[in-house]
């Protein structure tokens, strides 16, 4: 969130620069979209030149990359991973499945709209999105961070009851620790 005071604007500029140029990603690779991440990481598209880096644990990550459809079973793990991440944190919905269910829109065990369960900052459309599309989505996220628009975590905190109600509709046996982030 951008600060109103003029004296804080320079701080915002510096932190915005640092945050947007060093995105540590936690790729949640249960969907088929995760196959597009290795080409984006390795020598063909090499996303490390923009400061992106894959991290293995949610504690260290800034970006949660949901690659494709989410089964109702994996949604629980996504929510736990998301809540363990440290702010500022961003979510990228990857592929059509996260937007409207994609080709699994009438499946009995996948969720259709990711935005109802965790706040999504950037969607990348396509089935599959090519590595170029992935990079363009990440550039968009960078621009949003610089402008101070990527405040999904704040939205999640403010509308927690709504998100929790939606999550509990899908996850029947709700046995999750409460994170006081």
């Amino acid at each position, binding site marked *: 969130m951008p600060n109103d005071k003029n004296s804080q604007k320079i701080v915002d500029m*510096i*932190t915005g*620069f*640092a*945050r947007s*140029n*060093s995105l*540590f990603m936690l790729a949640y690779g249960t969907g088929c979209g995760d196959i597009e991440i290795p080409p984006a990481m*390795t*020598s063909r598209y*090499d996303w*490390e*030149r*923009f*400061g992106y*880096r894959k*991290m*293995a*644990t*949610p*504690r*260290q*990550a*800034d970006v949660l990359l949901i690659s494709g459809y989410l089964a109702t079973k994996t949604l629980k793990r996504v929510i736990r991973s998301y809540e*363990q*991440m*440290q*702010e*500022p944190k961003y979510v990228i919905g990857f592929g059509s499945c996260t937007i409207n269910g994609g080709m699994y829109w009438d499946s009995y065990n996948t969720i259709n709209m990711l935005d109802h369960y965790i706040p999504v900052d950037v969607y990348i459309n396509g089935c599959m999105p090519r590595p170029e599309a992935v990079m363009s989505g990440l550039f968009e996220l960078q621009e949003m961070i610089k402008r101070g628009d990527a405040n999904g975590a704040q939205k999640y905190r403010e509308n927690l009851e709504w998100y929790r109600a939606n999550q509990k509709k899908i996850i029947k046996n709700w046995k999750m620790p409460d994170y*006081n*982030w």
Partner: protein
Amino acid sequence: MDEFWMKIIGFVATVLLAFVVGAVYGGLVRKIIARTQNRIGPPWYQNFIDILKLYSKSSAINHGFMQHIAPAMAITASVTVLMFVPVLTGDGWFPWFENLNFKGDLIFLVYMMVFGSLGMALGIGQTGNPNAAIGVSRGLSMMVGYEIPFVMALVALMVQTETTSITGLMEYQDQHGWLMFSSPFAFIAAVMAMLGMFHYGPFDVAFAPSELASGPPSEFGGKYLALMMTSGSIFAFAKLVLFVDIFMNGASNLIILVIKTLVLYMIPVLYGAVSPRYRTEQAIRYFWGWPTFFGALAIIFAIYY
């Protein structure tokens, strides 16, 4: 009083220099590894951006007191090691860089270099993360591996030069030439131990990315990770300067220091960039093989030559 303040300024300047040079080396290493993989790689200042971002993140997790102070212990150990390593010698550009040397500091340093890892291990034990626990046990086993040839090399130097002080070693080198050439087996053993000390290449068993979920630091995010990265940069620089001091007669100004440390640093980095990862027992067997043999040879050489 004046000298006292000069010393304080010297400490602060040394720590800043170590952080800046260590972080730049870290960025260069990422660039070099990227180039060996036919990638372009991040800019050389990427580590500064990462550390700045991590300091600006929130750290709302707490597993207990030990976990909270573990990164602080790591950075304390790094700075302490740095304080006892003479960074620049002689009447260079910064004559106050000789820090807190005393007689026998080489033995002290061998103990002190382990302190940070042990503090981290205690803190990581409290997080209860199984990946981190495996990483710690691997790291400490590796340490048992590489400490033996390293200490053997140091003992050989101590026997040969009859001093246990780093400045004493450098005075010896002023008269007899670099210890790298007059005690070659000790140098070989120490360089082979250095491969494990920097956790690159085939010896990255502790931090094993994609195998252990980044290993020991896997429960540390935000400011904790930033402190650990800062500490790692300082410690890498301190270790390199220690090697340069005891084998290459130190450096009298900053440019020579950078050249010598960079050349030495490229040995583990380039060996690591082209090597796949060992298993833990393979790594330990490696260190107890040829490096230990060269260490023993160095001691015999030092006694009878």
